[in-house]
């Protein structure tokens, strides 16, 4: 009997794990990382996955047909795009006979296109995975949700009054407290009092009372997990981090509430599902509708039937995906046609400075403007520069993991004082600690029970004018704060302690970084490694604007670490043995690009040899120019910007926004991201990609074994796809996978935000990250990976990496490739490479959708 219950508990644990696979990963605000919220469904083709998500969450998988039709009217989607999308899906359309409707004869393509443009729009998706109470007594599932939000906020919130018994874990604490909750009916409280000691048994008991069979268990658990996916996702993230909570605890609470409340529910209990999806017109209704819209007369009954048979081939729910394909094709065709062909001139400057920036789309603008000046060549590489570090800054607080979340940090790196400047460093540390202490004391007093009254008396006289100044004159106030910081804690030169990183590891990382980005010869006098971060005020989602390759944090420490390694003679000696000869007069320099202000700061310049100070001065001046040009360019698309600003005023305007604590649009982040280009810079140099492409440098000739390309496709591409999907679903399904409007956000501890005072933890990006309030700024498109490399090399890599087979084969990422600019782009498909322009390539034909 004991063995039996142990087995049942183990099976339940597995079922909970499997049910939880569909949840997105939710990182806390401080390390907010973009993720694909449907990553758990990547094993399915994209279209199928979005339909499943519609069943689970009641969310949309694409924009509405109304939106696509607006794009069509604006010329963003053409008739040709629609026809090619139809032909790709239904290859035999062009050979089929025409359809006669009254006095007009139409090709089947025309008829289907007319249906796309004028057909009755698709009904909104509804959840079909529903709990017992959701179908039988909606008030009860609302009550369960309310309790869930309350207890999760209490457990995670970090409030001044911590949840009693929190140290015993969530389930134990909840079990002790919940029966005393007077908001729960008395009879249900009695049930709660009898809840099992262990969470597994509580779930098994509740499922038994609810009549859920083992075979239906995973689906039922998913119905609960998807009711409030924000809290469930955060619980899942917390499991395994000794947080005292896991999905089993979370489900035990929800299911116990549900079974207790349903057991004493006095209303009527309608059996089964109360409603099914309705509102989808029949094919005949669609045909009749089109005849009316097109103004066709004298159409016979048999002609309507014939048209209906054609329309049957494209079910109404499939239309949105056809629009999506056409929308993406328009953008992709344009991009691929613009990428360099052999007859386009390629810059052949004498390079004095190489600048390596993150692949982030925002770097593209900086690179473009810098390269408009003589002597600069830029490259793209993941912004952690291949050094996965656990970094402790000079203040010595908790270390930060600065690397993609796909890996764990390999080395500890500490910021230490320069031995020659220890007094200055000590003054900086003391100043920063003093300021941090004052700020901490202010916020602690603000959040405790009685202290706010005293705080208002004691500090109100200074706080009120300060807050007024921050609101009315943000730039002036920010300038004053910077001057205060400079006076109290003047910046002191520091260094990084790399002793924990063995020489072999340093050499390996240096070799990997250089070969992967394709920089193994022809080094400039300066090689700048430029990380990035963002410094917006009062933005809980600031981490979403920092570097994803650095775990949602600023990339400066990684750039500094990498530069320190590259400048070490011992590393260069070993690299020379490996065939990479970095000249003695090449100096690596670290920098950080602030993407909110487009200021680029050079780091550790006190370590630059005197021989290169002239180069540094030129670099600093040119970066100021490039940053200003980029800021002015971005200013034009920021909401609320006065028109026709001079470049100087535009730059000031952009920088003032970053200082403004009331500004909900400090920058546009990675809005518009649509492509990931893996190629030498020659392919993209001189082309304005409008900050829509991730750019990873790659030279196929120096990667004969394909290891560099494999690294690029299995890591940076994967992260780019996460970012792409995060923006995509925050745009098309903002209610489920978007964080809503910033204006009503309340931060819960350090875990996330809720909209208003209660409810689910919000997932994804705020609405102000993808829209200007009236119209979408982000055009949701799946990622196009354009790769310049031998096709068989890509095939080999794909064959041995299931993650790529899923992403490419299931249409989460589309791959275009060519070995050389002389050749045409080819499209990857499960059945082999096909010319990009071929309409029928890789068509997915579902038997039920073949036109008869």
């Amino acid at each position, binding site marked *: 009997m004991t*063995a039996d219950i*142990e*087995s*049942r*508990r*183990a*099976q339940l*644990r*597995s*079922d909970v*794990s*499997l049910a939880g*696979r569909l949840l997105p990963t939710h990182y806390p605000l401080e390390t907010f990382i973009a993720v694909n919220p449907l990553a758990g469904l990547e094993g399915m083709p994209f279209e199928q996955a979005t339909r499943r998500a519609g069943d689970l969450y009641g969310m949309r998988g694409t924009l509405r047909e109304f939106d696509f039709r607006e794009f069509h009217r604006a010329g963003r989607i053409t008739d040709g795009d629609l026809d090619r999308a139809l032909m790709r899906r239904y290859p035999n359309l062009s050979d089929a006979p025409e359809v006669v409707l009254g006095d007009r004869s139409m090709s089947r393509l025309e008829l289907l296109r007319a249906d796309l443009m004028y057909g009755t729009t698709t009904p909104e998706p509804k959840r079909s995975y529903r709990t017992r109470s959701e179908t039988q007594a909606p008030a009860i599932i609302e009550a369960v949700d309310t309790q869930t939000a309350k207890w999760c906020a209490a457990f995670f919130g970090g409030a001044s009054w911590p949840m009693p018994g929190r140290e015993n874990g969530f389930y134990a604490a909840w079990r002790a407290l919940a029966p005393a909750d007077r908001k729960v009916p008395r009879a249900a409280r009695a049930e709660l009092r009898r809840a099992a000691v262990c969470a597994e048994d509580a779930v098994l008991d509740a499922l038994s009372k609810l009549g859920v069979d083992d075979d239906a268990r995973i689906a039922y658990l998913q119905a609960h997990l998807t009711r409030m996916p924000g809290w469930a996702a955060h619980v899942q993230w917390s*499991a*395994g981090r000794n947080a005292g909570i*896991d999905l089993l605890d979370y489900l035990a609470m929800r299911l116990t509430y549900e079974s207790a409340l349903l057991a004493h529910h006095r209303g009527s209990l309608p059996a089964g599902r109360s409603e099914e999806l309705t509102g989808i017109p029949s094919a005949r209704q669609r045909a009749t509708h089109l005849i009316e819209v097109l103004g066709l007369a004298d159409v016979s009954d048999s002609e309507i039937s014939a048209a209906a048979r054609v329309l049957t081939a494209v079910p109404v729910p499939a239309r949105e995906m056809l629009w999506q394909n056409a929308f993406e094709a328009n953008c992709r065709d344009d991009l691929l046609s613009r990428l360099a062909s052999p007859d386009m001139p390629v810059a052949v400057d004498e390079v004095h400075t190489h600048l390596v920036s993150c692949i982030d789309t925002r770097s593209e603008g900086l690179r473009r403007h810098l390269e408009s000046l003589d002597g600069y060549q830029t490259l793209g590489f*993941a912004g952690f520069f*291949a050094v*996965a570090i656990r970094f402790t800054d000079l203040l010595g607080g908790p270390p930060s993991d600065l690397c*993609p979340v*796909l*890996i*764990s940090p390999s080395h500890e790196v500490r910021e230490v004082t320069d031995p020659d400047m220890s007094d200055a460093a000590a003054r900086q540390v003391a100043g920063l600690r003093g300021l941090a202490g004052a700020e901490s004391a202010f916020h602690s007093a603000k959040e405790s029970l009685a202290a706010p009254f005293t705080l208002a008396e004691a500090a109100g006289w200074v706080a009120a004018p300060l807050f007024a100044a921050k609101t009315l004159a943000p730039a002036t106030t920010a300038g004053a704060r910077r001057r205060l910081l400079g006076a109290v804690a003047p910046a002191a030169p520091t260094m990084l302690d790399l002793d924990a990183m063995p020489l072999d590891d340093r050499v390996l990382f240096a070799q*990997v970084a250089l070969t992967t980005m394709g920089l193994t010869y022809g080094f400039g006098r300066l090689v700048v490694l430029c990380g990035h971060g963002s410094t917006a005020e009062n933005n809980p989602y600031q981490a979403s604007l920092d570097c994803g390759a650095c775990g949602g944090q600023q990339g400066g420490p990684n750039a500094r670490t990498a530069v320190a390694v590259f400048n070490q003679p011992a590393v260069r000696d070993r690299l020379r043995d490996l065939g990479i000869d970095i000249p003695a007069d090449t100096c690596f320099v670290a920098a950080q690009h602030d993407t909110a202000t487009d200021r680029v700061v050079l780091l550790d310049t006190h370590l630059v040899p005197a021989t290169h100070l002239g180069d540094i001065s030129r670099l600093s001046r040119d970066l100021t120019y490039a940053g200003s040009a980029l800021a002015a360019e971005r200013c034009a698309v920021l909401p609320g910007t006065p028109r026709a600003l001079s470049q100087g005023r535009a730059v000031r305007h952009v920088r003032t926004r970053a200082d403004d604590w009331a500004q909900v649009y400090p920058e546009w982040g990675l809005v518009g991201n649509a492509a990931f280009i893996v190629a030498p810079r020659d392919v993209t140099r001189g082309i304005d990609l409008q900050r829509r492409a991730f750019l990873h440098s790659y030279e196929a000739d120096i990667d004969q074994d394909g*290891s560099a390309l*494999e*690294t690029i496709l*299995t*890591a*940076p591409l*994967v992260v780019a796809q996460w970012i792409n999907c995060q923006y995509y679903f925050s745009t098309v399904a903002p209610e489920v996978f978007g964080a809503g409007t910033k204006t009503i956000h309340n931060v819960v501890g350090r875990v996330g935000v809720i909209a208003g005072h209660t409810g689910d933890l919000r997932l994804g990006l705020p609405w102000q990250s993808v829209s200007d309030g009236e119209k979408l700024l982000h055009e949701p498109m799946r990622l196009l990976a354009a790769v310049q490399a031998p096709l068989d090399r890509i095939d080999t890599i794909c*064959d*041995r*990496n*299931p*993650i790529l087979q899923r992403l490419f084969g299931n249409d989460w990422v589309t791959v275009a490739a060519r070995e050389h600019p002389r050749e045409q782009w080819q499209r990857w498909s499960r059945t082999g490479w096909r010319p990009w322009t071929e309409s029928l390539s890789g068509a997915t034909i579902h038997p039920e959708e073949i036109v008869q």
Partner: protein
Amino acid sequence: MTAPVLTKMTKVEVVVSGSDAPAVRELIQSIGATGYTSLSGVSGLGHHGYHQGRLLFNQQAALELIITVVPQPRIEALLAGLRPLLDASSGVMFVTETFVSRPDYFS
């Protein structure tokens, strides 16, 4: 000199993707196993073709081999939990008899 007395136990080896490994490790701990050995970045050939081993910057996509040894009373629960996990993914499991010299380490 006498030969050490060995105690019969059951060894379970599981190969799953790095993203599925936490669920396996959690299950092993939940049934009362005292530990496991984990080897990441393993490569091999199976139903789904060749699978690349260590990837430089992606530990989640690589395969992981997890080995645990449990006494007989715990094996049934462990297998009951592992089966649904493996049914839903591309992993494999090997179960063999094994012998240990210090049984108190495993129970």
